[in-house]
């Protein structure tokens, strides 16, 4: 065997400092509970709950430390060499922290919700085990410091969500799981091709403000366009860009907490987040603009926004309507990214958070309707507002936020997106936003109308949880949507205050556009 066939240096980390450990701890705080939960016997509910919640709280704690640290100029990076020239990197930069905070906060509430939702159902060890793995993967996606690490966790996310989608074991669930895998694994394979290609050209693809691809000479423009296409196509599957969105409406057969997490933070958001990373920190937004990659992306995003809303109009199944709404809403993020200019960036990035908070509220509420009264269809919702006022109130806030009614979260997003479109010289985007808003109203307002203003005409399909002491449903089911609905209101109202999602998004945008001060 000749020399140079292998490589001698394959060492991992030698010494680990506190700043290196923190990203790992954030991962471990859901990975370890997940693995422990797998090995717990089914009937150890108390212990399982304890592990879940301890993990969730610890994760929040670690993230809080990092948030504080990043504001004070600390940096948190962990590196591990898998192969020479191929590293696993976890990095807590501003963008990562934005997403990781969102995931951890929403995970905490979803865990509470799931504990209530799955009360008494079988296979909970398996469910919570994969649930924790799923969050671990999401956190990994958030903190990935280079494209390779991102890809690793992006694929782990696919694998850990599959058991959640098929959890119920019904033929519909298995079919949905199959469709989900077919889409996401194919997307992953396309992404892999793009990633390997880019690594071949660049050697390393570390996420860097301003991008790294521009170091290649102009003769690579063609290849870089091809790679961009592969990367966006791969990410677009999870981000449910039309025409790669087919899996999402099917996957809503999963239990409500899973749908909530899938639509708000985990899968769909991982795709959108990946698009943000690729445009800003792999290509660099200016370089992407110079390769004329942004306009096509904006067009695809706009098509998705309109198409998703149109399809949502015709769904009677509540979760299906919400699923099409997700397709539409998540593309706001891609749209914001594609608008060249800091204001558009701001709109896209802040929507990453806002959409998550709003959509999780809506899915929690949909789960409550189904779990409490057996309501799955919009046409069964007549008068439900008076039976379940708190849930419906939360739903109303979420829905109005999605439409973009001020001062709710969605308004902030749309405002900045609109401004960004003008700044980028793409006024036609305003028309897209306007049409989308009209359509949002057209599919959400009838629901609100039915819930509040129509009398109940038929008995509830299946009243599982009776009204007790004026409480419309179980506490653990009610609390999470109320909190997230309140958050929808608060992040909108206090958008201008420090440490709000908008403020944090400004920090990110300011780093991408060096000459810009918000």
């Amino acid at each position: 065997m000749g020399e140079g066939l292998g490589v001698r240096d394959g060492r991992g980390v030698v010494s680990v400092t506190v700043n290196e450990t923190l990203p790992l701890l954030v991962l471990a705080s859901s990975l370890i509970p997940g693995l422990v939960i797998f090995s717990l016997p089914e009937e150890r509910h108390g212990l399982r709950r304890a592990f879940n919640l301890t993990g969730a709280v610890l994760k929040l704690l670690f993230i809080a430390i990092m948030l504080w640290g990043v504001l004070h100029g600390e940096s948190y990076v962990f590196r591990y060499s898998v192969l020479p020239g191929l590293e696993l990197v976890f990095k807590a930069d501003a963008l990562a922290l934005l997403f990781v905070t969102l995931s951890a906060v929403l995970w905490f509430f979803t865990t509470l919700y799931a504990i209530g939702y799955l009360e008494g159902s079988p296979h909970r060890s398996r469910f919570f085990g994969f649930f924790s793995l799923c969050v671990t993967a999401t956190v990994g996606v958030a903190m990935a410091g280079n494209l390779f690490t991102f890809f690793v966790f992006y694929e782990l996310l696919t694998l850990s969500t599959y058991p959640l989608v098929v959890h119920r074991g019904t033929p519909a669930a298995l079919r949905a799981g199959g469709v989900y895998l077919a889409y996401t694994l194919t997307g992953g394979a396309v992404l892999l091709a793009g990633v390997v290609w880019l690594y071949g050209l660049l050697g390393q693809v570390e996420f860097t403000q301003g991008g790294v691809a521009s170091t290649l000479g102009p003769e690579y423009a063609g290849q870089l366009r091809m790679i961009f296409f592969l990367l966006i196509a791969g990410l677009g599957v999870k981000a449910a860009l039309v025409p790669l969105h087919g899996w999402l409406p099917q996957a809503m057969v999963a239990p409500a907490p899973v749908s909530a997490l899938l639509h708000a933070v985990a899968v769909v958001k991982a795709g959108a987040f990946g698009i943000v990373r690729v445009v800003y920190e792999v290509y660099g937004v200016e370089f992407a603009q110079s390769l004329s990659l942004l306009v096509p992306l904006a067009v695809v995003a706009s098509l998705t926004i309109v198409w998703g809303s149109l399809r949502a109009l015709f769904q009677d199944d509540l979760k299906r309507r919400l699923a099409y709404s997700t397709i539409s809403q998540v593309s706001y993020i891609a749209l914001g990214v594609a608008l060249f200019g800091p204001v558009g960036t701001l709109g896209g990035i802040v929507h990453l958070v806002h959409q998550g908070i709003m959509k999780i509220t809506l899915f929690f509420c949909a789960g409550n309707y189904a779990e409490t009264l057996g309501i799955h269809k919009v046409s069964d919702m007549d008068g439900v507002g008076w039976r379940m006022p708190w849930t419906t109130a939360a739903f109303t806030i979420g829905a109005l936020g999605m439409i973009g009614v001020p001062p709710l979260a969605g308004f902030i997003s749309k405002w900045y997106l609109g401004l960004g479109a003008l700044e980028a010289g793409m006024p036609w985007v305003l028309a897209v936003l306007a049409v989308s808003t009209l359509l949002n109203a057209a599919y959400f307002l009838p629901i609100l109308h039915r819930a509040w203003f129509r009398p109940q005409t038929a008995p509830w399909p299946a009243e599982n949880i009776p009204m007790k002491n004026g409480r419309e449903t179980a506490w653990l089911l009610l609390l999470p949507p109320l909190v997230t609905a309140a958050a929808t209101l608060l992040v909108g109202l206090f958008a201008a205050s420090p440490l709000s999602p908008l403020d944090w998004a400004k920090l990110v945008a300011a780093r991408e556009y060096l000459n810009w001060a918000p």
Partner: protein
Amino acid sequence: MLDPLPWLILLPLFWATLAFVRGPGRGGRLAVAGLLLQLALAGGLARQVAGEGERVYAVGGWGAPLGIDLAVDGLSAVMLLLAQAVALPLAVYARAYYAAHEEGARYFWPLAGALLAAMNALFLAADVFNLYVTLELLGLAAVGLVAASGGAGPVTAALRYLMATLLGSGAYLLGVALLYGAYGSVSLSILAPLLGADAPLAVFLAAALMLLGLMLKTALFPFHFWLPPAHGGAPAPVSALLSALVVKASFYLILRLWLDLFAPLATVAAAQLLGLLGAAAILWGSLMALAQTRLKMLVAYSTVAQIGYLFLLFPLATDTGSVASASAIQGGVMQALSHGLAKAAMFAAAGTVILSLGRDDIARLGGVSSRLPLTLFTFALAGVTLMGLPPSGGFTAKWLLMSSAMHSGQWGWVVVMILGGLLAAAYVFKVLRQAFLPVEAGTQFKPVPRLLEWPAFLLALASLLLGLRAGEVLGLLGAG
């Protein structure tokens, strides 16, 4: 201190013979102890190679060309480690398996010992005739293991396997005869410098015969016909040993001959042909796996497909010395290692399911996810490696092969690898999804001992973690 090199060959022969003398079905504990020692020896040898580089050992003190040389370099050290690391947990598994399932247990241990001795001898051999003897030893041991359960299916499969392996070694032997006729030596180290592009026709014929014979033994498409019934029909510990290790041994020899001996003769066309056969194996094997209704047959066809990846390295390694070539060889070896670990785990898991459930219809696996969660998890983890998803060793292998393909501009192989990964996902999830179904009415799950579930799980975990320790493995590979 014990010199690990000769003992890696003698030790398994010793415990095999002693197990035989002790009587039918006996000797499992002896085997586990022996394998433990062998693993330590292989580790020691790997450390020697990593420290001091390649090593040549003249048996009998004569040295080539009169005597027989053994040699160990990075590649052989890695393969030796793989063989012992797979065999040890499988031996623990086999003890539990045969305690519950007596068929085929009578001569398992002596046959397995002979198999390991043959494999270790093959990885250490540096003499083409000695390699012939090790190949025959390996082939007969493997056939014996397949046939040992005595059922109609396995016996027919074993006979077919025997005929294939004999045809293969016959072709190889004629190649050896031609090489000896041409150069008067059978030592690799003597032959290598003598071979050049101007070699006589007989040497080209020898190369073709030897490689063809070995391809037949490796079950490369279209020579794979014997593999699925043999690997699918044997008892689970045997299937695991065969699929994980035995086909790798003949692949190792192909790689060794291609790189060390026949390199000056190798043409781009021949390399492309090997790659095309590999690609066909990937696609055909995966499709056939997808079409199977029995669990073990599915796993066996998956081996046909996974072998294909190994052969993609030949077209990628044409331009010797380049970055693309180095990473292609690394990728191929990583694939051999991770598939070895994963497939052993997968067959072992399938065996556990069959023991517990009493059947292996894929359509009737309902309830496995709740009754045998660890075993299902094992199957899934092994599946991750087969699909080539991160962070498994299979992923690292695919990454290396894909980068190599892109560096050398051979895009076709990238497409094949992507398709192969997706098809692998299709057949792995075909099994997993059934396991999520509720328990079928009237189905009894027999409880299974832990020693059946844990060794398989550890193997699967190793195949996954291999991806994270790839740097060290490749470091060792490059050391000699």
